């Protein structure tokens, strides 16, 4: 397993902790144009995803792996369609656990 470049699970609020670092999150797509996607994070914050051309067509949910540029923007390296029935609430809980009590279990 490649642990050289870990990506932290984040939601919208946690993004600011990882500015300049690699993160992964899932957003609900609100709109996209010219290689950027505007999405809603699992904790209902707006995130702008740039850098990588989004897959087409986009599904409702999109996983984003990339570098946190600011507290609401990610420069994407990988974009993956996550389907239309993703459960954002569970993901949000995962992000909180992975950055809180159980941080030690995650790299």
């Amino acid at each position, binding site marked *: 397993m490649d642990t050289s470049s870990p990506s932290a699970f984040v939601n919208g609020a946690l993004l600011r902790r990882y500015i300049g670092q690699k993160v992964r999150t899932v957003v609900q797509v609100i709109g996209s144009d010219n290689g950027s996607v505007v999405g809603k994070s699992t904790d209902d914050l707006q995130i702008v995803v740039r850098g990588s051309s989004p897959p087409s067509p986009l599904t409702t949910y999109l996983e984003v792996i990339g570098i946190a540029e600011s507290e609401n923007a990610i420069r994407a390296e990988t974009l993956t369609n996550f389907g239309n*029935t993703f*459960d954002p*609430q*569970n993901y949000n*809980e995962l992000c909180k*656990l992975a950055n809180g*009590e159980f941080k030690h279990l995650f790299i």
Partner: protein
Amino acid sequence: MEVNLTAGAITKMMNGEIASEKDMTPVLQVTELKLIQTKIQKPQQNQEPNKDRYKLLLSDGVLLQQGMLNTSLNGLVEEGIIQLGSVIKLTQYVCSLIQTRRFVIVMQLEVIADICDIIGIPGQVGKSNEPGQSSINQQHGEAGSVNTQSIGGFEQQEARRSELNGGRFGVSADLPQPQVGGQNNPDTGRYGVSANSPQPQVPDVGRYGVTASSPQPQVSQRFGTGSGIPETAPSTRPYVSSNAGYGGSRQEQPRAPVTNAYSRPVQSGYQPQQPPMYVNRGPGARNEAPPRIIPIAALNPYQGRWTIKVRVTSKGELRRFSNTRGEGKVFSFDLLDADGGEIRVTCFNDVVDQFFDLIVVGNVYLISRGSLKPARKDYNHLPNDYEIHLDSASTIQQCYDDDAAIPRNQFHFRNIGDIENMESNSVIDLIGIVSSISPTGTVIRKNGSEVGKRALQLKDMSGRSVEVTMWGDFCKAEGQKLQDLCDSGVFPVLAVKAGRIGEFNGKQVSTIGSSQFFIEPDFPEARQLRNWYEREGRNAPCISISREFSGVGRQDVRKVITQIKDEKLGTSEKPDWITVTATISFMKVDNFCYTACPIMNGDRPCSKKVTNNGDGTWRCEKCDRCVDECDYRYILQIQLQDHTGLTWATAFQEAGEEIMGMSAKDLYYVKYEHHDDEKFEDIIRSVTFTKYTFKLKIKEETYSDEQRVKATVVKAEKLNYSSNTRFMLEAMDKLRKGDASSLPTVKPESSNYSSGIGTSGARETTSVDTHREFGLPAANQVSQYGNQYSSNSRPLGGITSCNACGSNGHVSANCPSVMSEPQGQYMSGTPGRYTGGGMPRQHVGGY
């Protein structure tokens, strides 16, 4: 030793003021004690042979009252603890009005003094002791006879009685209960004749005249009975007059004044029914006259003939069944009488046709004849040890003039808080405020039909709330009305009559066939509740007793596989029902199905194994028939694995289909008809190493003297990761809050992960309420979603499940597989999600 008899007790008994120990526990003296032996058995009575009984006369110092000792107290007499002159306190007894006489049946007593001189000079009454007598003369006449008797006439009376016993009345006096004697006597033959034809009435009168002159109460009573036959009415009158007040007074019942009383409602009903009865029974065999109306409480198996005046409080639906004796149908209805007695009536087959349409809930009927059987308490919640089985000789006559003395309904309301400590399957009456109601969902019954289901939250002053599940027609009429009320922002008061307590991670209440709902009823309890709700109940915290207990009792709980062994599941009397999330790690593919008999037996196929005759037909031993084409049913042997261990399990037809995603027949054809091994392998591979949520029935069974714990899959669903994750998050949350009690205890070495598995609890009553507090349709929708959401969030923890057949979606009390009860209904878990399924069919013994 100084003893005080309870003054006036007997007068009160006679007046009907006291009927049981609830009213009074009088201290009385035994002034006469007589053994009544059962010498002759009536064939239609199923009593044990030679059951002796003691008859006694009880005195309160002034009056005497006839009584009967319960046979369980015979020992007291035989050991001499009770003897002539004993002073006893009646601690459990019933004053029954048997025809016209009151009898005290003593069930329990305390001996105050073993022996004591007779106190006072009591006189016997206990004959025409009904209130409301009109003729003073008659009373005088009677009093006279009573006096004679009490001054030494008693021996004489008894002597005379035995004379009679030796002769014509042989049977009567020997019957175990006095009322039986009174009523069945005619059956011995002589009187039956007289009842049938007016002609022999005259000699009868003569004979009775003799009898009646002795203080032998049954006699005139018997005559009164006879007068019920219209034809004999004319001859009754002369009898009345010729016998002074004695017989006449007896006929003046409060409910049925004077002779013609008997020729009225009772009789008009009997008239049309009687001819066939005579044909059936043969002339002269019985007195076919309608007897007096007796209270339900006085019914017992030793009485052949009786009439009760009752209101039908509920009527079960017509059910068809099939058992080894063939097919049949059954329905039952519940009765209530003016004395508050309740009893269930059950009719089978032809009798169903006879009476089904006649019975309408709320109407008053006179019901006569039928046998009393011990109540099947599993199915019959009424507070009566017996139930009535009607037969072709039974009569039901509607009383068109409503009797206001018979209440429309009788409630025994309990607090919702009490439910926590009540047994599952008990039937209770509740009254509470409906705080929310879910939309109707449908559940597929095992027989393929659909049934509606919806749930509501009911709370009361005990500060508890409970989920009440409605089934079938309740969803429509009552459900819609409640929904409308809730939508309009009202929290309606709901009285539930006869709801059944179910148990799954807590308690809930569901409707059964005899349940009734009363929405915004107008009685004191409802008004009290409404006041409470307006004052404080609306904002009072309310704890739901549904779905929040775990770790106690036999419930459907999440387990891990090693817990099957560690906790010795299945080794208790009843099977354990558990839910596990596991992967199918191996599957035996050689005999995944068997050839089954497709012949319909009732509403289900027989499904027994059929053998190939070699000529293309299949033979079923059970049906003893051959069929051209057989069914194929799964019998899958699979190995389940989770993070703690492995276990074998068997999945039959329905569960097999759920696992394989195709019918056994299709799979059989792939492998054995088309010989498409590659496709077959693909199908098997697609199933193995797939995670499912299994509901398992764990039960220890014995195979050739070897005990083996067997796991049967009763339900399998592909794992829903989203809901499973929610479930785990919830469990983790609980764990962090230290609420470990809600988690199944797993041995530490089993796994750390198992801590993630627990029973989800949900206490959303208040929150639901809060949603609705914002009111009105839109908000109510929110609450509905809230409900659905919450149930979806714990499909693994809160599955409604059946202890009997194991399928999700109903509880055992209402399990279609044990539906031998006419009342049963089907239940399910959360709406629309758990649809039927479950165990392979089970034969229903039942009727």
